[in-house]
């Protein structure tokens, strides 16, 4: 009978599947939603952890697919690092429902919310989607300020130590090392950008305000009229006018944004379009957070110098 045959096939398949385990070792499995968080976790965890990022460095982290393979990854995680501030709202909740992993439940030591402890910018005073897709907890692109990376690193070190107390000293030492590296780099980055203090730029999406605040750059316009809303011709005309009157000659985009729109605006304003990813790995030579920031700062400084 057909029914019996089907049950037999299913049982054989199940038995075969369940026999396949993975090789064991004693490293913590850390899952980060985005590559920037994964990179910082790698600096803090060192050899004591294995890190994987769910989002690809080149894709928009607001719109990651809730693929079943992510369910498996989260099911076996010891630690989950999420950006928070509603960045992953469209895809992380259904993954976590299916992952059935109490180690990364909200409030567990294995659950790290990176936005915790960050002074968030652009927290809306009212919730109103006629203003675009505004996040109720503020702008989630906070890692472009290196000072925030230090706060996130400390948060990660603190949680890793709770999850694996035996290695607490290692995490603490790595944190000190990371902080020192960022401090040294921050001095250098500020020196690179100081000559352009107050310089005016345009970005595609509202994803550079933390960077702008740290390095005293002024973002005079966004190509998106409102967050998440595609640029309209009328808005772009306004952007072009603003860029001309404010003498802004740089448009910053990310790999997944519409570079052609930016180039059209640039042609009419004698501006350059800079493709500056905010995720390590988007440029394959920049695999770490610091390398990614290095590229961000030097590319912008070079463009602002007009050379």
């Amino acid at each position, binding site marked *: 009978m057909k*029914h019996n045959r*089907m049950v037999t096939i*299913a049982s054989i398949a*199940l038995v075969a599947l*369940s026999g*396949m385990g*993975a*090789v064991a070792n004693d*490293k913590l499995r850390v899952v980060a939603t985005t590559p920037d968080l994964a990179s910082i976790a790698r600096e803090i965890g060192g050899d004591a952890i*294995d890190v*994987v*990022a769910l989002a*690809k460095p*080149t*894709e*928009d982290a*607001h*719109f990651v697919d*809730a*693929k*079943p*393979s992510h369910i*498996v990854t989260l099911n*076996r995680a010891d630690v989950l690092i999420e950006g928070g501030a509603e960045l992953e*709202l*469209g895809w*992380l*909740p*259904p993954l976590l*429902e299916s*992952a*059935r992993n109490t180690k990364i*439940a909200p409030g567990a030591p294995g659950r790290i919310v990176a936005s*915790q*402890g960050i002074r*968030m910018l652009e927290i809306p005073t009212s919730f109103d989607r006629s203003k675009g897709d505004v996040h109720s*907890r*503020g702008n989630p692109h906070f890692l472009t300020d290196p*000072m925030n990376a230090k*706060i996130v690193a400390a*948060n990660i070190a*603190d949680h890793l130590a709770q999850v694996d107390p035996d290695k607490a000293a290692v995490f603490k030492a790595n944190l000190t090392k990371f902080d020192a590296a960022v*401090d040294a780099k*921050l*001095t250098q980055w*500020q*020196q690179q950008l*100081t*000559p352009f203090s107050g310089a005016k730029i345009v970005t595609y999406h509202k994803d550079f305000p933390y960077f702008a605040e740290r390095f005293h750059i002024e973002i005079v316009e966004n190509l998106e009229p409102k967050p*998440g809303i595609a640029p309209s011709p009328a808005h772009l005309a306004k952007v072009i006018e603003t860029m001309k009157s404010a003498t802004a*000659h740089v448009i910053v985009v990310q*790999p*997944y944004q519409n570079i052609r729109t930016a180039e059209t605006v640039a042609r009419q304003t004698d501006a*350059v379009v800079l493709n500056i990813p905010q995720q390590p*790995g*988007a*440029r394959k030579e920049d*695999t770490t957070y610091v390398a990614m920031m290095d590229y961000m700062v030097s*590319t912008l400084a*070079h463009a602002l110098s007009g050379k």
Partner: protein
Amino acid sequence: MKVARWPAAFAAAFAAFVTLAAFARTLPAQQQDTTVRRQQRMLDSLAAALAAIQARLDSAAARPAEPPQAAPAQPPSGSYMNIGFVTLVDGGTSTEQDVPSIELGDHDPVVRGFTMPNSELSLDGAVDPYFKGFANIVYKIGERGETELELEEAYALTTSLPKNLQVKFGQYLTDFGRHNTQHPHAWAFVDLPLVLGQMFGRDGLRSQGVRLSWLAPTPWYTEAMVTVANSTNETTFSFRADESFQIHGGVPVDRPVQSFEDMLVVPRIATSFDITDTQTLVLGTSAAFGPNNSGFSARTQIYGVDGYWKWKSARASQGFPFVSLQGEALSRRYVAEQRLAIDDPAVTLPADTIWDSGSYLQGLWGIRPRIVAGLRGDWVRPATEAAFVSPQRLDRFRLSPNFTWYPTEFSKLRLQYNYDNRSIFGTDHSLWVQFEFLLGAHAAHKF
């Protein structure tokens, strides 16, 4: 601590990115007084020195002395549950005057003109550390303008059972195939695939029950689940539903639950692989077993296979561009006992084993952000002759091209044409426009 090594398949694969070409932009040469330039250089170097000092001060100040609480905890936003409200409005016409005779779903257009097929209030949140709760309450306006209310789903899901187990209980869309568990908001077409309408009735397979699911410890996703639910409902069409005379043509018997055999049992197994970094495949097989009310020991079996493949660009903007293919094939074995014909009790219909089968295949192309073109083919046919000639059981083919524009994630406008060929009745043409708006909580989408 013993934990397993990451399977190589999950290692982060970083896509290469084309380096920016030359961005040299020469400023017009400016003839400036050398003294001014010298002074400017001095100012620049002073400013740089100041910035360096400032940076050191900033670093010292921001280095978290103790726990990393550099800023006060954010005030919580929202309430203890997420609330969303989504409304669909359909408009259009068909060469078939009796629209429900060709549109088989309860959330499909039902009249020439306008239909409000689905206004859905969705609630969800954590019940406590052990359960999550969900509810979908649907309002819709029927053929004659009457408002109907339906508790579509209300269920809880466990969060912390051991051994990768999970239990779901309440009223929910049963896990059979892919489309059946999706709400109209997530559908890629205006209407229900024909085969699902034919096998599960207007409202899909949905009942009160409990589901046990197990996530297998395989390197790739494999989930096995089984639902046990009530088999009497208008939403268990092929089982003990009052409307089942549409299948067997007899007077439905009033058949009480006497043993476990009288429950509806729905097993499913699904598996998924990432073929490449940008391509994912999901395969599943499902079945549904239960009693039907053509007689006191009559039974129905439904078998299904489903597949979904998706490619999404590694540099996706707002999830675009993408290409996806989704298909399901179902087969139903309906054992009807000897019964009195519903339209003429003087006639006795002989016992029958009625086989039906059908499938659909739909392709979507997300051309650029917020623009999707779709094409779906629907096939249903009776695999065996039966004593009762049911208008439900027709040889039928439908082809539906459509086009959807999403102004944002929270609204959409869709245009769809249906070429619809039914044996006996001939060919019909329908044209539908669908508008949707969403308020409140973001709809998080399952894959």
